[in-house]
């Protein structure tokens, strides 16, 4: 990666090699989409990445990165891969 920014690299990458600060990511199938999520609290996940071949899925604000989903309210949850 070539990083080009006005922020110094040491500020941007601070804590990069600290495993405690790295989120534990898992892949899940949610409503027919593959999502890379992080568990936050009970039955809640924060979306980190969406993997879907349908461009329209990316326009849905519910599935934007950073959104929190409540697993109990979801349909089509196929569980952990």
């Amino acid at each position: 990666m070539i990083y080009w920014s006005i922020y110094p690299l040491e500020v941007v990458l601070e804590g990069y090699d600290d495993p405690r600060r790295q989120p534990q990511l898992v892949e899940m199938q949610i409503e027919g989409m593959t999502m890379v999520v992080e568990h936050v609290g009970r039955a809640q996940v924060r979306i980190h990445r969406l993997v879907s071949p349908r461009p329209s899925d990316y326009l849905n604000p519910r599935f934007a990165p950073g959104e929190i989903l409540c697993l109990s309210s979801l349909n089509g949850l196929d569980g952990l891969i």
Partner: protein
Amino acid sequence: MNNQAQPPQYDPNYPERIFPTPDEQGTSAGTAIAENIERLGQTNPVADESNIYCLTIVGQVEGHIMLPPQNKTTKYEHIIPQLVAAEQSDKIEGVLIILNTVGGDVEAGLAISEMIASLSKPTVTLVLGGGHSIGVPIAVASDFSFIAESATMTIHPIRLNGLVIGVPQSFEYLEKMQERVTRFITLHSRITEQTLKDLMLKTGELARDIGTTVVGRDAVQYGLIDELGGLGPAMAKLRELMEQSRVQRGRMMVQ
């Protein structure tokens, strides 16, 4: 009689409820609001179907490496499919890109810039706050660019980081990376290569680096950005470009 109110149930169609389908919009927008009150106990404003797609690029442009959580990032793997969706959608006629970015991954930023530049629909970018480093090619990628009077753009050379094999190789490599960015910027704006390089290599302006901070009006003077303005002018320009492309498409249909 079971008159008890039913607890709100999850409905897989719920997301579509917020964004009504075209036929719903005209005939039963009121019903949709009523349903929202019933279902959620609140009045979600029924969003009208806009023919403009607004994309915001803020914070760091995140590419191949996931940045630590203290960074606010825009992930390019999310931006790219959104641009694809905007391109293929029949309803979307123009894209407005709002930028306030401090820079980030060169590859990711160039990928986004190329996507914006090759979009067949009219695009307008608006730089608010800042469009620094890799934000510069993204800002110039559109058909027409605006910068707010108070917004700034930092133009400075790509610095060395990452895996370094040897001095001559890395120098060559950096030069090549820089060349890609410079070429893109000069191709998509009115600035000359010489002016851009002069701004980039200027000393005495930045505390930690060589380069220049270009404020709103100067960016227009150097030819980097097309016009000074905020949201209103940007939107008016986008509508004008959309109208032009509509006329053009109409003409093609006649032929």
